């Protein structure tokens, strides 16, 4: 009986390890091939590199305009995520603490709008912002992320703020704090766990987004990492070495962050789904 269940335990562990290999093998293949010469990649894609071709990385780094793309992605993601988190927290707080018919309608409108697919908006969006001369600008893109990202963020904050006792804020107001001061000193710190969730969900979305930046950012200096990867891949489809290196370079920042913040990222996704 005990032997049988131990066998079963081993079988489960082995199948988990096999499943895990299926999930990470593509990344391992990418990394090993990024160090190989083009000929070695096509003749034996499974083999380990015989000698390390750092040239692949040098050429990918240059031709992708890596530094510029990385800088653009970083600015857009950081500014977008911080602004979404802050502004949505303020809005959700106001909606919860001022229960008027108008606020209920506004909140309902935001929640309902979450069902609108991006494809139904992209064409008029390009037309409107194009005619205002606001395309090809990182700050327009950040502004759009606030518009698209705030409904979900307001919704998640709204659920959490309802559970915070009102007495905390009333005490601060009694002591002479203004509304804004009360929010920043009392409410925002309490919202920290929810803000982590919002940050994780929005970083995963904005950092990797392709379609919206491809519509908004037209010149090559404005490109984000996914955009420059796309154009790089389009122009060098025959030269596998630099291509693999380019993909690794795009992955690298994410992998480094994941190594340190893995627990928060998985927890953030988990929390985001419960609310």
């Amino acid at each position, binding site marked *: 009986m005990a032997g049988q269940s131990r066998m079963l335990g081993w079988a489960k562990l082995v199948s988990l390890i096999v499943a895990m290999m299926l999930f990470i093998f593509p990344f391992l293949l990418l990394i090993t091939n990024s160090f190989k010469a083009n000929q070695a990649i096509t003749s034996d894609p499974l083999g380990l590199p015989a000698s390390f071709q750092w040239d692949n990385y040098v050429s990918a780094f240059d031709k992708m305009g890596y530094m510029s793309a990385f800088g653009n992605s970083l600015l857009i993601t950081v500014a977008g995520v911080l602004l979404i988190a802050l502004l949505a927290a303020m809005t959700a707080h106001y909606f919860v603490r001022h229960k008027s018919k108008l606020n209920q309608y506004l909140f309902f409108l935001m929640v309902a709008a979450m069902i609108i697919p991006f494809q139904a908006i992209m064409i008029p969006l390009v037309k409107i912002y194009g005619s205002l001369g606001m395309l090809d600008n990182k700050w327009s893109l950040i502004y759009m992320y606030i518009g698209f990202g705030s409904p979900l963020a307001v919704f998640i904050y709204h659920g959490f703020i309802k559970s915070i006792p009102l007495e905390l804020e009333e005490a601060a107001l009694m002591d002479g704090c203004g509304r804004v001061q009360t929010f920043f000193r009392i409410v925002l710190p309490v919202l920290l766990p929810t803000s982590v969730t919002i940050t994780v969900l929005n970083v995963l979305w904005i950092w990797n*987004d392709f379609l919206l930046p491809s519509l908004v950012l037209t010149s090559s200096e404005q490109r984000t990492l996914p955009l420059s990867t796309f154009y790089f891949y389009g122009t060098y489809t025959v030269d596998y070495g630099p291509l693999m290196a380019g993909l690794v370079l795009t992955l690298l920042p994410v992998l480094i962050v994941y190594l340190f913040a893995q627990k928060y990222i998985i927890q953030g996704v988990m929390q985001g789904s419960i609310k």
Partner: protein
Amino acid sequence: MLTEKGLWTRLRTRLIFTGPTLLAFATVMIIPFLYGIYLTFTDWDGIAVTQNLVGWDNYIGVFKDTVFWKSFGMTLEYVFITVVLTNAVAFLLAYAVTRGMKAQGWFRAGFFLPNLVGGIVLGFIWQFIFNQVLVFAGQKMNLPLFGASWLADPDKAFWALVVVTVWQYAGYMMVIYIAGLMNVPKDVMEAASIDGASNRRMLARIVLPLMVPSFIVCIFLSLQRGFMVYDLNVSLTSGGPFKSTEMVSMHVYEQAFLARDYGLGQAEAFVLFILVATITLLQVYFSKKLEVEA
């Protein structure tokens, strides 16, 4: 409650707290959405300064566009298959990594890995795997299934998209199922186990019914992602070979931005919105009816 004296003070507080968010929300989502409905009645080509009203022509055009309906049908098939497979795999993975073994954190992290990477990059990685690695392995080991690239065969290219989608999203849905599994009350499980219920019976009678909210969330998310698939479609197959894997989202993009028919493209996008909204609302409505209390 928290009310202030004076109309001006109240208005100022409202503007500070909700102004920026509502401005961005209205000008990025609501106005373009409404303007988009107007555009479906025009013949705008993307360049002309003015556009003419053409009545219902674009909607008639949508019904006549056989390529749109072909890609819509294929998208439905793709959504159905990926929703079922993604959620089945995700639930199995979640069930396997919540049983209290030592390395389960590592397994979770590994299964979640693809979700950190955008569809564009994942599509390119898998393009390499389908075109080079699997063909190489197929020829070496004499596996006819992988003898030629899947991406060159219209039917297999569809399945390539399915495989990568399931691989990408299973880890994300797994995380949501883990949260659901951890919320199943321990005392209910213990009581059942004292009453002599087998593992399988507990799964069928207790765990699965209590997990309905997680299934609703996951099916909702995988439905939405399935209908909107674009990045992966572009980078893995670019809709090929011969447009055989052009999903509806990619078709709308091509219709508007490449064929320069914005009115028709927008009308197709709007038809897509109506259909997706109906399907997701029906799904949420019917699955809410299945929910039980612990």
